[in-house]
């Protein structure tokens, strides 16, 4: 009997703590598949965030460092600069990357740090129980925007790929989604690009993955996928925002 589907080697046997319907598990698997296919687990160091993915250090089988909230790109900078032969990735949520860690994100990007950033955007703070994120949509109800996010009061959401695509150090910025099998395949290709860019020393790559949070959105897993399609994709259009290998400089 031949094995047709197996757990990637780059994932440990640790039981994941993610809620039913949460897409973290899919994205973890995609990252692990890419690490397996590039055969780089032995020389990869991952940086975990503070947020729902805080325990990612238990799930990835490569060496892992757990950073302070928002500081993963700075930690990754230290690891990569001290060990250019290593493959270094960060795995961060929207609060971590686009609120408390915005400075670290922008400056790692503009320095062109040769790292790969996996950015999970689910429009909410999951771990602390559903508060407003920097990416929370206008009108979206969270525990800290109980009347819906009002831009005049709580400000506007931040579009990370669009912002980072203006920086010279960025080699690749793409927004993908994992709401359909087709989009999962596109997401994997983008993550693969992000890691390949690093192996080719091209600079900073960010893959923003639109993700669901059924628990804190108060939706079933299937409803959450629909909510993502109907509300998030219009505000955060999918696509490649920068690709230095594309014709014409690669800015969308």
């Amino acid at each position: 009997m031949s094995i047709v589907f197996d757990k990637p080697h780059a994932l440990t046997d640790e039981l994941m703590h993610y809620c039913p319907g949460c897409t973290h598990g899919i994205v973890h698997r995609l990252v692990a598949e890419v690490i397996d296919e590039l055969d780089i687990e032995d020389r990869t160091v991952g940086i975990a965030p503070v947020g729902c993915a805080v325990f990612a250090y238990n799930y990835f089988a490569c060496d892992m460092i757990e950073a302070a909230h928002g500081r993963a790109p700075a930690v990754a900078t230290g690891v990569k600069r001290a060990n250019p032969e290593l493959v270094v990735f960060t795995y961060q949520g929207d609060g971590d990357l686009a609120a408390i860690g915005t400075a670290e994100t922008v400056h790692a990007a503009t320095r062109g740090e040769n790292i790969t950033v996996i950015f999970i955007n689910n429009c909410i703070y999951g771990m602390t129980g559903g508060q407003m994120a920097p990416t929370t949509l206008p009108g979206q109800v969270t525990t800290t925007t109980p009347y819906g996010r009002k831009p005049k009061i709580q400000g506007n959401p931040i579009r990370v790929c669009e912002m980072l695509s203006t920086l010279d150090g960025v080699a690749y910025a793409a927004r993908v989604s994992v709401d359909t099998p087709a989009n999962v395949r596109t997401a994997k290709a983008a993550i693969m690009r992000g890691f390949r860019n690093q192996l080719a020393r091209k600079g900073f790559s960010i893959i923003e993955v639109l993700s669901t949070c059924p628990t804190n959105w108060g939706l079933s897993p299937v409803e959450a996928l629909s909510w993502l399609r109907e509300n998030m994709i219009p505000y955060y259009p999918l696509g490649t925002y920068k690709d230095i290998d594309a014709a014409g400089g690669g800015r969308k």
Partner: protein
Amino acid sequence: MAKVLMKGNEAIAEAAIEAGCKYYFGYPITPQTEISEYMAKRMPDEGGLCLQAESEIAAINMLLGASASGTRAMTSSSSPGISLKSEGVSYLVGCDLPAVIVNVQRGGPGLGGIQPSQADYYQATKAYGHGDMHLPVLAPSTVQEMATLTCEAFDIADIYRTPVIILADGAVGQMMEPVNIAECRSREVPPKTWAACGHGGRRRHNIINSLLMDPEELERTVLARFERYREIEKNELAFAEYMVDDADIIVVAFGIAARICRTAVDAVRAKGIKAGLLRPITLWPFPSSRILFHSETAKAFLSVELSMGQMVTDVKLACECRRPVEFFGRTGGVIPEPGDVAAKLTAMAKELGCETR
């Protein structure tokens, strides 16, 4: 290498390179910017890297990354910037990572000033970051010590897997004195088998982490760390003494203040007042046992600091209220004159009824 004339800040940088520090992450702030500038010039020749971070917060986290991957790395700042680093320092402790962090102190609070100060004593010795923790704190008093203690700091950091603080001040940082980098000593340090540097297919993955959700496990980890602190207290305590054996009054002072006090001790000795000087070189561990020992014979202690009086609390605790402990200091960047300290000692001697010639 022969003696050369160097600024204290430059001596720290050169000694760090001598100690094998390959990565320096900094952010400009007076009065310690020479460390960054010196590193920027020297590191390329050493095959290392001096990287100017976007903030003190980023700098300490870059240091964390470089250290977590098993290399020797350093950051430096001055008081306001050090406050920004405190988050990272606590994480370094929680992750059991070696690191060297230099504070060339200036006056505070807030932006304060840019003149020398010792007002970060409490911060350095009691509360550098959140949580149950200690940090070895080394207090250089000369440019030579800026060098030798920096080398020491890297070894202590590696041996006990802890961040180590160099608590200097703007005066020692900015002054020029002869220094011999070759006087720096190095010790044997354990291999960094814990480092996150790629498992190479040879071992299970290493995890560098400060998060422990199980209270029992967190308590066990903190207790194990405190066992290491006991070892540090036992092995790493350092202080220097001057004319303490027959002293009626012992001045306790560190860093630049100790140099001022030594002149003051000489001045009052010439007038027949038996004064001496105890200079803590490690502020944590603090030479409490030595102060207690001296409290058998000395009649009083005087803590002299460039602050409103912070170390004085530790001197009082150390002598267990057996002897009066007084304080003299200036703050805000004002440096006391030896004559001011001598006048204080003279007044104390009179009050204590000490014999004079």
